[in-house]
């Protein structure tokens, strides 16, 4: 059913081979490129549905490849990185990457990221009412139910939850969320975001201290599931 095509750009032969095997097991069509230049060319020729891009390529810096790609490539790019330095990840996400994974990663994680990214891209109109475990969020009616009991949210809290729901499964950076909800001037006011996420968790999470829906990605942002 999958059949989506994925281009993997990574200079490590072994990683390419393994990713190909694991992804083809899931019925994805996989093409691989071992250098940035080859990758950029193949992206243009094959127009894949998704690109997995390693940041540490020998011939061209991964961030530069991303910038080149993003000039015309509209579909999701997931960053693979061995450098778990948050700044690098945030910078890639702010330059148009859809999501990220740090090596070594589990294949199950990779598959979850790919599914979320493809779903988001296919613009399969997000249904009005969405269920996430014990939580049901209706975007149009702006209502939230937990275990079928209504929850009252303030205007901003609902906007924040709505943004999470529309991007569920994807990491959203602090800066992105602040920009979307509070506008350009609020980009650096991370303390407000912390506060709102805190109050939102108190309302929608079963145990706000061990959140199941709004997951913190330390130093990067949040992921809703």
């Amino acid at each position, binding site marked *: 059913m999958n059949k989506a095509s994925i281009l993997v750009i990574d200079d490590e032969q072994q990683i390419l081979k393994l990713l190909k095997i694991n992804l083809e097991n899931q019925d994805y069509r996989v093409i691989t490129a071992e250098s940035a230049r080859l990758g950029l060319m193949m992206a243009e020729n094959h127009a894949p549905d998704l690109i997995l891009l390693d940041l540490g390529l020998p011939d061209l810096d991964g961030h530069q490849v991303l910038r080149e790609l993003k000039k015309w490539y509209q579909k999701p790019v997931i960053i693979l990185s061995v450098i778990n330095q948050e700044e690098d990840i945030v910078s890639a996400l702010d330059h148009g990457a859809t999501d990220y994974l740090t090596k070594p990663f*589990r294949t*199950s994680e990779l598959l979850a990221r790919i599914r979320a990214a493809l779903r988001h891209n296919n613009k399969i109109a997000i249904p009005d009412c969405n269920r996430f475990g014990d939580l049901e969020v209706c975007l149009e009616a702006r209502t939230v139910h937990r275990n079928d009991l209504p929850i009252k949210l303030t205007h*901003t809290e609902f906007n924040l939850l709505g943004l999470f729901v529309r991007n569920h499964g994807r990491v959203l950076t602090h800066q992105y969320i602040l920009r979307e909800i509070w506008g350009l001037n609020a980009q650096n006011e991370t303390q407000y975001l912390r506060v709102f996420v805190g109050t939102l968790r108190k309302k929608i999470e079963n145990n706000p201290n061990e959140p199941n829906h709004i997951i913190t990605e330390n130093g990067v942002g949040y992921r809703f599931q």
Partner: protein
Amino acid sequence: MAILFDIIPVLLSSILSGVFLNFLFIPPYYTLHIENSNDILLFSMYLAVALVSSVLTAKIRREERKSRLKEEQEKSIKLYNTLLNSLSHELRTPLSAIMASVDGLRDAKGFAAGTIDADLIDQIDIASQRLNRQVENLLNMSRLESGLLRPKAEWTDISDLIFSTIRKLPEHRQMIRFHPTVDLPLCKTDSGILEQILQNLLINAITHTPQHCEIEVRCIWDKDRLSILVEDNGPGVPENQLNEIFKKFYKLPQTGSGGTGLGLSIVKAYTEALHGEVIAENRKEGGLRICLYVPMEATYLNQLNHE
């Protein structure tokens, strides 16, 4: 003080040059007398110009030196980062390959059919995860040793950080509890470094206490510093070794295999990078308590009512 030492030689040289001018070129020649009032003006003007230009030159030189130093420092930071990154790449790439192979094997047809030994695959998996943690420790240690660590403070929800660190711990058989303090403010700190500190403290606790022990994390805000306490009811540490455990490569004599003795030394170095301190003590009730004190900026914004 340093500025004074810098300035004195230039002042001296400009005054000396003035004296020379007077001695050689202002009549009467070869004396230090000045008779003509025009010459007094000339002399003082020359002196003023010499003083100003020499002070300026000194300043420019100082700036140049500073920028050269900074350039060199930046160069060495860049070099070190490149080295660390390539080391990190070389160590983690094979680990990624091993883990991806394990995942592939579990997914393969033979696995469901039972012709692949699940136990063996689990062993490879456990070993690779353990190796991965050691690689992380070694990389952290070398990053610290380079002295190039620059903490970056951002507003952090400490309870959230502690919970997400606990959630990401490797499988363990101890009970870990954390009761968040209700009135904890938002704190400004480097959340990545604090996460590493906590992760190492907790992994240390799970490796060195028997199964079914209880590990408790407590967090207290006191005026301008954050205290995080990690307590367990394990065997504790002999009193005379309490300071030793933070030393690099130190391992308690009776501890079995496993661990490199790096975990707690990284905790100490990272804590110091945040200008904090870390202390170990035995609890009266038995077990070890590690106290982390880190000064930081805080805001009670989260106590306000919004909208």
